[in-house]
């Protein structure tokens, strides 16, 4: 085992930190929790792309930099540490680009990957439906062939970043007679397609975090089918392994962690043995989560697709984030209830925001229960339920 980074990797980390600190110094944005998924900032995305940091692990011929998974880990870890507003490119960089690269035609790769890398094509996901959550294979959105097109009808839900995405990665049923997981296909759908509408939903924090997507005879050219027809469910499992592969969940609220520790130092609360014990315990749990996340990258560096390893990391990390927010609120006491817009609010209101937001972390990208099923059956070889 080797827990170290090379000199070059350390220099890269410093470069990323320097870039992000400069951004903050110039007042472009403030560190925020959940900024990777809620921080809409096209100018930031453009500046990141100018550094060559979007799609950095993709081949150069498609606008990537041919960099390693470890480099991307370093980049994303620092983005999360600084709470940078990376939502415009995050999904495409993390998983949709990889899906196109793994399964898409050369034409699709050439059309989309360079644009994603230039920070010009933002993606959202069209996976869940009102009747298809954990049982994703039961999805009912239909795609019916009509000449050179597929015609899509149905509803998707819980789509993050929907109001600014240019495209959606949509899974729809192409063979209603096949067993449910063998009749699904994956499409790229232009967000401006006639018949496609988006209705936002307000989450428990008061943020318009998600949208419902409605498909009313949306025509999608056949060239926008990703991979093989009816193989979409296998492709989505692959994509989900990558969706869960990063440090988003252990570090998505890092700005709160840093702020609460700082607050305790400055206020003298850190002299209280109970507070010391709680924060030290969070530090232990944080470090364990980071290492479980690092292991996922290590698996990818070995050329394997992380499966139960990402399930373990994500399931663990969402529990950490719930405890982080709760400990922060306990430390703040009655001030913990003050929301960001309130007078007297400490820590910019990150603690209650994070506490409420964390209820969803263990649901999105695979519920903790589904992830534990994956870990038990795929990782430990226990018999299917």
């Amino acid at each position, binding site marked *: 085992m080797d827990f170290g980074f090379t000199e070059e990797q350390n220099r890269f980390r410093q470069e990323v930190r320097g870039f992000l600190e400069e951004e903050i110094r110039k007042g472009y944005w403030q560190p925020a929790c959940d900024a990777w998924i809620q921080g809409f900032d096209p100018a930031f995305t453009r500046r990141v792309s100018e550094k060559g940091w979007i799609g950095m692990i993709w081949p150069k011929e498609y606008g990537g930099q041919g960099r390693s998974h470890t480099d991307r880990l370093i980049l994303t870890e620092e983005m999360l540490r600084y709470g940078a507003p990376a939502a415009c490119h995050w999904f495409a960089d993390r998983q949709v680009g990889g899906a196109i690269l793994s399964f898409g035609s050369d034409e699709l790769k050439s059309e989309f990957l360079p644009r994603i890398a230039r920070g010009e094509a933002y993606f959202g996901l069209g996976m869940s439906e009102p009747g298809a959550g954990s049982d994703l294979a039961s999805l009912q959105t239909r795609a019916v062939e009509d000449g050179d097109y597929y015609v899509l009808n149905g509803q998707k839900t819980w789509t993050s970043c929907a109001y600014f995405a240019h495209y959606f990665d949509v899974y729809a049923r192409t063979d209603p007679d096949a067993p449910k997981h063998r009749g699904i296909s994956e499409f790229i759908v232009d967000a401006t397609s006639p018949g496609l509408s988006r209705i936002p939903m307000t989450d428990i924090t008061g943020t318009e975090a998600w949208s419902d997507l409605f498909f009313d005879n949306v025509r999608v050219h056949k060239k926008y089918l990703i991979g093989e027809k009816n193989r979409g469910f296998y492709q989505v499992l692959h994509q989900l392994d990558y969706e869960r592969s990063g440090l988003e969940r252990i570090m998505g609220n890092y700005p709160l962690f840093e702020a609460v520790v700082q607050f305790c130092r400055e206020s003298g609360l850190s002299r209280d043995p109970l507070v010391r014990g709680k924060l030290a315990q969070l530090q*232990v749990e944080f470090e364990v989560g980071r290492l479980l996340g690092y292991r996922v990258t290590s698996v990818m560096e070995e050329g394997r697709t992380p499966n139960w390893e990402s399930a373990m990391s994500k399931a663990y990390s969402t529990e950490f984030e719930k405890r982080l927010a709760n400990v922060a609120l306990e430390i703040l006491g009655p001030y913990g209830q003050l929301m960001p817009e309130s007078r007297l609010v400490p820590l910019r209101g990150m603690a209650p925001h994070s506490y409420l937001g964390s209820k969803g972390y263990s649901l999105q990208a695979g519920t903790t229960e589904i992830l534990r099923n994956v870990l038990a059956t795929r990782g430990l070889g226990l018999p299917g339920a």
Partner: protein
Amino acid sequence: MKLSLTEEQEMLKKAARDFLADKCPKSFVREMEASDTGHSPELWQDMAELGWIGLAFPEEYGGGGMRFLDLAVLLEEMGRACLPGPFFSTVVLGGLTILDVGSEEQKQEYLPAAIRGERILTAALYEAGLRSFNASPPTVEATFDGGDYLIRGTKLFVPDAHISDHLLCVASTKPEHGIAVFAVDAGSPGVSCSPLSTIGGDKLFEVEFDAVRVPGTNLLAQTDGGRRVVQKMVQRAAVARCCEMVGNMQRVLEMTVDYAKERKQFDRPIGSFQVIQHYCAEMATDVDGARFCAYRAAWMLSQGLPCTSEAAIAKVWTGEASRRVIDRAHQIHGAIAVTTEHDLHFHTRRAKAAELMFGDADLHRETIAIEMGL
């Protein structure tokens, strides 16, 4: 960064697992627990010949020239097998401390013989009430007396003292009021050991030093650096014990998963029930978390990097995670595993003992808090 074992480490791991499966079945562990010595000289010689005792020592002392990180692999397998005997005492507490702070003469004196399996070493760290190793100076005193030191006082929880040839004793020096580590010949007049009966089934002793005369040349650490040396000893011991615990937990997880696959109730293997699956998934997460934080600390020790926080993190997580893993293992195994007929109790008892030694979670959390600038 690569969080899997190297090919060489995989080979070492496999060799160790095969050897211990053969030489250290649970029947042997049971026999050693019941015996007074808890030690098999025959097995000890075998391990010396395999190069295990000397694995992490330089070749000039007869060692294998490998790193602490490689020793971690071996310790994990030993923890898995619940290996009884003085390996940890001799190598981790004794040998590596001497390697760290001994003079060249002292290294030549103790290390080659220990590595050949001819001498057993241990360390006398704990005292009554001495929960933290930093809070107060040892009550055991070493008084300078005409070129020698006279050591007086009582040490506790000294592993394998009854079979050790040399004890590294931590004492307060007089008149300097420093902290020093002495290599004490266990056969010296005035040294007496009385056994303690422990939850872990390992052999721990109360050791009394009744005006034991120790030559000044047996002073290992400089008196002014003594406190730092003790901290390093405890830190290394904590990390090494974490590595053993990783093996212990990994074995418990495997036993439990195997049992859940075989055991049928309601006409199905109980491992097909999601409740059991989720328990096992949580256990696996605890085990892997422990593995990575223990190995990270071991890696940092190997690299000579300061790892105050990382070692403490490993000890906090490993102790608490092993307790959760063992609780779940008992719940899944059912009543059979709370009998002594079943093997699980060896792991249960050792895990608890390991949690309590070299700093428990509360103690290490305080270390982490200090490192966090709190």
